[in-house]
């Protein structure tokens, strides 16, 4: 029996729960409109009483004879080819990658206007709705507010229940039509589109200005204008005045009580009218928490799409560090997220099947991963491409930003730097391959964290990874591959120096689930077994999948409490037990000074006893 492919598209459209003219709906025939609404926002005649819910419209690819009658759907998608999908690409350790794009083209047709999401008053209109207008013509007039609405792409076989089919989740970006040729199309993206520069800024822009005529460097109170604008600000936090000074504040109404010259800035004089912008501060937080906050608070992504416990588990197991960042001006969330992906060594992608944003530290592929072999890779589909431009042998990591008002991409803005180098790699390849990172997220003392950036990136790209493209038939009972998944790929072109075929660890960076096969792009996922001393780091950071070491380089400073320094970088001491023992090494490089002020000890160890 040949399996019969079916595909559906579900669209969640907003509709009003009220009945026209029945309280609390304030519409009245002949007064608010000549005809009744269609219970949509666009046709609403009493918008103040509009009460929204969503209803689902289901459409199917017109596969003909075997379309299951038990699954109600309008078969107005002419063929499988009318669902086109450009899979998003995961950019491993680099950026958020590209967005998935789903485009569904529907055929226009007549419709009875009966059913959930259609005209609830169709029998009262005085015309036969089947013979007046068309499905998509009327839909366009009623439902223009579709951006961000959920759309589901469902793939299955005719003998499956709808709930057992693969359902992929996206969000409507735009629509087009109906056109003269009777076509209407919906285009949707994955949820990370919400982080785009044109729709997500962190911190959010403020409208407040300094009302105080002249704010001297010693003044500790400031007033906001216009009146009432204080409600736009938090009760406590940090702001930047006139783009020149960051201050801590507590707020009462429009009045700020301020602590001057914070976060590395100097107290300055400010004038009436200087803008006052909230400064977003993450102080010693897990990168998973920072990303969660950026995405859900500033990117307006529904927290239901993130499993924060999973993120924490990944963070604790493979990252284990705290990050600090001060963002003084409204900045694109995408840019901030990209910085963290690069500096921490992450892969972040939308799992359209599970409806979750995935968070993964770059790490080795397990040797137990699923195997993709010549027996399940489509004939003639495999292509292999070298990516020499991705090679990396040297890295300069600049960190400890002097203040959040310093320009990010200037060497002089940073108090500390680490230069990491794999001399062997440069020798092997004949030339060095250099990259520089400017990190606002790595604070002073976090030498080990800065070194880790280099270890991850050089380890990952010391030998430039190959890119693989191939397809896999959707075989009954066969391996079902996943976006972001790690696998072992074999084929005759992959050999060792003796000609023996070897498995190449890969991570799938792009997956297009066609009706009959998966189209796959993947990147070789190897980490060089570096002699970490070889990369010129006196405090060698751990390889990506080994237990996290604890090596902290101290800077200049007074009255240093080693436990406090440790807690500013790592979050795990309070939960450690006897079984979790790890050596902690503090290094004071030559030339640095730790001194005593106000009579206290220059250096204390404080308590490092694990909890029982």
């Amino acid at each position, binding site marked *: 029996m040949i399996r019969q492919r079916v595909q559906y598209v579900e669209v969640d459209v907003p509709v009003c729960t009220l009945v026209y003219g029945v309280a609390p709906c304030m519409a009245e025939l002949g007064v608010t409109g000549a005809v009744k609404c269609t219970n949509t926002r666009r046709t609403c005649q009493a918008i103040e009483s509009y009460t929204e819910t969503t209803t689902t419209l289901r459409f199917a690819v017109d596969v003909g004879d075997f379309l299951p009658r038990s699954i*109600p759907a309008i078969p107005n998608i002419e*063929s499988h080819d009318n669902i086109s999908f450009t899979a998003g690409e995961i950019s491993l350790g680099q950026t958020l990658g590209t967005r998935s794009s789903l485009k569904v083209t529907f055929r226009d047709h007549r419709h009875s206007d009966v059913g959930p999401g259609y005209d609830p008053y169709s029998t009262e209109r005085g015309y*036969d709705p089947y013979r007046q207008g068309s499905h998509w013509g009327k839909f366009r007039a009623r439902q223009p507010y579709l951006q961000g609405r959920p759309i589901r792409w469902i793939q299955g076989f005719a003998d499956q229940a709808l709930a057992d089919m693969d359902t992929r989740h996206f969000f409507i970006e735009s629509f087009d039509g109906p056109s003269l040729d009777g076509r209407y199309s919906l285009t949707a993206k994955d949820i990370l589109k919400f982080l785009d520069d044109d729709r997500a800024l962190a911190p959010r822009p403020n409208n407040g200005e300094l009302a105080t005529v002249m704010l001297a460097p010693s003044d500790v109170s400031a007033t906001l204008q216009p009146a009432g604008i204080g409600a736009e600000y938090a009760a406590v936090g940090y702001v930047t005045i006139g783009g020149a000074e960051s201050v801590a504040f507590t707020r009462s109404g429009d009045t700020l009580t301020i602590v001057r010259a914070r976060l590395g800035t100097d107290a300055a004089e400010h004038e009436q009218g200087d803008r006052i912008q909230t400064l977003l501060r993450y102080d010693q937080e897990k990168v998973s928490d920072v990303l969660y906050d950026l995405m859900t608070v500033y990117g307006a992504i529904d927290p239901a799409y993130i499993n924060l416990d999973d993120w924490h588990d990944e963070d604790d197991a493979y990252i284990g560090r705290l990050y600090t960042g001060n963002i003084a001006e409204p900045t694109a969330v995408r840019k901030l997220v990209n910085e963290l992906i690069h500096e921490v060594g992450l892969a972040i992608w939308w799992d359209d099947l599970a409806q979750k944003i995935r968070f993964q530290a770059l790490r080795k592929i397990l040797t137990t991963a699923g195997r993709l072999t010549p*027996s399940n890779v489509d004939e003639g589909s495999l292509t292999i491409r070298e990516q020499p431009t991705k090679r990396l042998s040297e890295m300069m990591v600049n960190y400890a930003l002097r203040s959040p008002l310093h320009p990010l991409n200037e060497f002089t803005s940073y108090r500390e730097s680490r230069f990491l180098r794999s001399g062997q790699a440069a020798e092997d390849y004949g030339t060095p391959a250099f990259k520089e990172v400017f990190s606002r997220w790595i604070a002073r003392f976090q030498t080990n964290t800065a070194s880790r950036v280099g270890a991850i990136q050089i380890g990952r790209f010391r030998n430039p990874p190959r890119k693989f493209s191939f397809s896999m038939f959707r075989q009954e009972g066969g391996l079902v591959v996943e976006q972001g998944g790690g696998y072992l790929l074999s084929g005759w072109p992959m050999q060792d120096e003796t000609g023996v075929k070897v498995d190449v660890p890969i991570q799938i960076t792009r997956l297009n689930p066609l009706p009959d096969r998966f189209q796959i792009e993947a990147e070789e996922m190897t980490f060089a077994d570096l002699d970490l001393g070889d990369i010129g780091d006196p405090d060698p950071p751990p390889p990506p999948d080994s237990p996290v070491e604890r090596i902290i380089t101290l800077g200049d400073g007074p009255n240093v409490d080693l436990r406090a320094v440790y807690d500013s970088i790592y979050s795990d001491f309070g939960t450690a037990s006897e079984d979790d023992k790890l050596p902690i090494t503090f290094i004071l490089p030559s030339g640095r000074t730790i001194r005593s002020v106000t009579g206290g000890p220059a250096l204390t160890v404080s308590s490092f006893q694990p909890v029982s």
Partner: protein
Amino acid sequence: MALILSPSLVLSAAADYDLTAPVLGWENDITVAGTSADSSVDFYPATNLANPATNLLWKSASTDVQYVTFAINEEEPIDYLGIARHNLGSGGIIVEVEVQLFDSGEWSSLIDGFVVANDAPILVRFLETTANAVRLKLTPLATPPEIAVAHVGHMMVMPVGIPFGHTPLIDGRSTRITTGNSEAGDYLGSIMLSQKLNTQLAFQYLRDDWYRANMRPFVKQGRGATFFYSGFPDSHPEEAGYAWLTSDPRPTFIEAGWVNITFEIGGIVE
């Protein structure tokens, strides 16, 4: 009196019919305003029966004896009833057709109760009459009835048969299949992407005056026009179907007094 063309049943064959002539039931007197049912599920009203879409269903919420009534123009002659996309066969539902000749008149049986064995389109042909209304009396066993399309109207009886070389709609499958083969030469299986029914209905040497009087109004409907049809009602009632034109038909006036025409059709047979 009646001929029920269905894959499962030929109820009776009366001498009044030319049983060999192909028939096309495209005229339909059913209207939205004139269609009602004793029972309907929300969002599956009886008015859905008055449009040709096979995905817009009337669904009953009841398993009691019930009626679906079609008020029609009592001045127009009728001689057929068509039903498509239904569950009358799989539901074991007894179907009886009744007619009301005049407004407020008595209902009388037009077709005695019958049961079909499957859910293929049903084409019921009866002697020409006029009526104020026609209704289906449905007696379910345990399954509420549902129907997508109903026609009541006057048939077009073709004066000539379908020539040799015809592919019955039921056999006219167009199937898209994709097959997988691995790099190692393994057969990975096949997946069917679509399967649709289509064929051609060709009629040759129609008299031009007959064409002008009877077929031209149908041809005028153009691409998308829907109809019930049976190409061989006498010998092969199981080949009856509900079909639609997939291209605009163009008659060819081949010589003085004669017309050839071919209909490209798609359709459903179950």
